[in-house]
């Protein structure tokens, strides 16, 4: 039996990027093009248009002290590399890292900080991030101040000598508050802080925080980037060699990496990101307009509405408004009947998929935030969050409206 050991040593350039990189200098590529081209024909041996899923955990070394560039899959996997390069390019960063979940991405990044360090964080924040900070990382001596970053003065006031970073969600989840990324990054830079932006709601299609001065971008790629409610994943993109190396070290050491099949699914989802975002956004705008007029609804939160207080900043720093709409019903009694009557929209946690989902933040995504903080921020028990999918807008509007009508009828007594 003979073993072809020469294969890898001869093919050192197996994963060199033939087209995409060499073209970049000559031809300007739009994000749509970059995303669709990710991984295309990078497999030089076969020319496969879809990059293969490499299940191998270990890679034969051509000889002692030599490597093909791949040693052990936790450290690097060819399928994961294609995904990581794609997100880095889409966000305009220097390096990308794929993690087991959005929370795995957040906690990997938090490995940058040490006992005694302090971070300033968006007040209105995904409940899972809040839980990680307060219930896990606080035990390691990390400190967090939650401030309303819509006013950059609040950031300046919260900075202490031991502050190391500002962690921004914009638009916030679930109240869609808009933070001026460039203004925050400017204050952060002046004070020697890292700016970290959770870009899950916007995706690089609508917003690229690194271009606005942020140092690091995070994604729950489970959401719009994956887009099909079928894969759990997190992504990190860094700017600068030093920060990239630090995250590379943490990513490998902590080991919360994304498996190859999930990398491939995510890459597959990302190819249609632009199309999906356009439709999500158009549908969300149509629903937001309808909700505004409905008697069962008191408030609508969508940054694409001209009356939204963050509308101008959003228009300046992003090229779109995405597909997330929150709204308040007149009374908490309407929530259960509304959710029960929905026929097309699923009552489920998560967002950003092709299917429309409705979430009740008070008991689902934000259940881990203490009630008094939730109420103070505005995540009350009348608040619902819609992740508007890519179904036909008329069907979605009809479904939401009939459920709203029914909720008024059922809860009529208390609403009057």
């Amino acid at each position: 039996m003979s073993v072809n050991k020469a294969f890898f040593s001869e093919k050192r350039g197996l994963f060199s990027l033939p087209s995409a990189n060499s073209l970049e200098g000559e031809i300007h590529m739009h994000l749509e093009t970059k995303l669709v081209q990710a991984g295309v024909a990078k497999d030089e041996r076969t020319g496969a248009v879809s990059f293969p899923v490499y299940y191998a955990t270990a890679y034969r070394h051509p000889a002692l002290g030599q490597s093909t560039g791949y040693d052990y899959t936790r450290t690097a996997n060819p399928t994961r590399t294609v995904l990581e390069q794609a997100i880095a390019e889409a966000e305009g960063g220097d390096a990308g890292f794929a993690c087991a979940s959005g929370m795995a991405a957040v906690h990997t990044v938090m490995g940058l900080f040490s006992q005694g360090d302090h971070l300033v964080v968006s007040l209105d924040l995904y409940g899972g991030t809040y839980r990680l900070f307060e219930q896990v990382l606080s035990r390691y001596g990390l400190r967090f101040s939650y401030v309303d970053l819509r006013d950059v003065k609040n950031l300046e006031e919260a900075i202490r000598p031991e502050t190391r970073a500002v962690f921004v969600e914009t638009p916030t989840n679930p109240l869609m508050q808009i933070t001026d990324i460039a203004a925050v990054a400017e204050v952060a830079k002046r004070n020697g802080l890292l700016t970290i932006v959770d870009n899950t709601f916007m995706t690089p299609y609508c917003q690229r925080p690194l271009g606005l001065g942020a140092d690091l971008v995070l994604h729950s790629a489970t959401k719009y980037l994956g887009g099909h409610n079928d894969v759990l994943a997190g992504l990190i993109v860094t700017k600068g060699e030093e920060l990239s190396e630090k995250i590379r070290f943490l990513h490998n050491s902590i080991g919360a990496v994304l498996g190859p099949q999930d990398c491939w699914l995510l890459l597959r989802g990302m190819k249609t990101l632009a199309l999906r975002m356009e439709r999500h956004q158009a549908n969300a705008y149509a629903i937001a307009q309808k909700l505004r007029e409905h008697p069962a609804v008191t408030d609508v939160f969508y940054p694409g509405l001209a009356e939204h207080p963050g509308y101008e900043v959003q228009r300046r720093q992003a090229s779109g408004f995405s597909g997330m709409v929150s709204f308040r019903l007149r009374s908490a009694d309407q929530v259960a009947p509304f959710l029960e009557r929905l026929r097309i929209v699923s009552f489920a946690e998560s967002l950003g998929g092709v299917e429309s989902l409705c979430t009740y933040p008070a008991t689902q995504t934000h259940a881990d935030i203490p009630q008094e903080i939730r109420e103070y921020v505005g995540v009350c028990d009348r608040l619902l969050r819609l992740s508007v999918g890519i179904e036909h807008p008329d069907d979605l509007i009809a479904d939401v409206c009939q459920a709203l009508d029914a909720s008024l009828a059922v809860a009529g007594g208390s609403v009057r």
Partner: protein
Amino acid sequence: MNFATKLLHGTSCIDPVTGAASVPIYQASTFHQADLDRPGVYDYARSGNPTRHALEEAIAVLEGGERGFAFASGMAAISSVFMLFSAGDHVVVAEDVYGGTYRFLTKVLSRMGITVSFVDTTSLEQVEAAIRPETKGIYLETPSNPTLKVTDIAAVCALAKQRGLLVIVDNTFMTPYYQRPLELGADVVIHSATKFIGGHSDVVAGLAVTREAALGEQLYMIQNGMGAILGVQDSWLVLRGLKSLKARLDVSTQTAEKLARWLSTHPAVSRVYYTGLPEHDGHDLQNRQASGHGAVLSFDVGSRERAKALFDRVRLPIVAVSLGAVETILSYPAMMSHAAMPPAERARRGITDGLIRLSAGLEDAGDLLQDLAQALDALGPVEQVADRDAADDKQAFSWA
């Protein structure tokens, strides 16, 4: 139920709707909720996914624990389990832990205010001496990687119980087939399931099992909160690999034993580490606390140059990082598994420049032996460093 049967029937993997004999891959990140007041078992896949759940139940049953957890990698399992501790806590750790664990403890966890002492856990006195008022746990790997030192799990657990400490055991080399630390008193068992449990060099995964439900709740909070979970396709692959665990280990262990005996007689080899050899320091203890010696052995060929020459000559084994696969894997700890450890620390642990680790696969033992023989013969005899033990070993083991 015997272990072999438990591997296949220990938990109900039959899909109740279709009767499918293999648990379906639920590639869903979220689950529809029928009723606001009665949330379903599954809501969001990070918190729970039916495919991952099947794997988590299976490993809990096999290890004899209350609750199982699947993580994105062995290191994700280890880093998550260490989050059970808080700033100010101290942990006593086996000195020859896997290099990746060493790196995580010294470069990441240390910044979070958790301190560790590395001690030779084969000595109960050393373990006891390292315990401080703020010590909260003891972390073991037995047999250790790569020199296969054996720690008395039950004795350490008894000591830990007296002092109210948590005992965590990395059971990767043994798997629950050969060794079940929870039954010996440990609180948490960890696996790099990338190795024997997955067994096919095709999935990176980590597993953890807690003996008690209360600790399981704490670890669940960490698993869900930190989110370093295993994906569904990977969960399914691990479950699939698990089914043949006993059959694979039976063959690989037999081969490892054969190779260890033969290597210890070979003039090109100065020393062999394998707990199955009666002269191994931990041989009797291993026989007492485990039902097998496993498929990993290490041997010393004397120098880096000779190791390199051997790697160049072998035809069958894969030269690679990792272990515990159907393919035989040779690795070079000094530059691979233990590269993250400073040279002085490596030397102290016997991880010399001539040390090679072999993880026996499922190839024919005769073929492997023949291949190693041609590679070793070409090296010529190893320079006899004054190592009486090794010389004695050779006399005792002429290959029959």
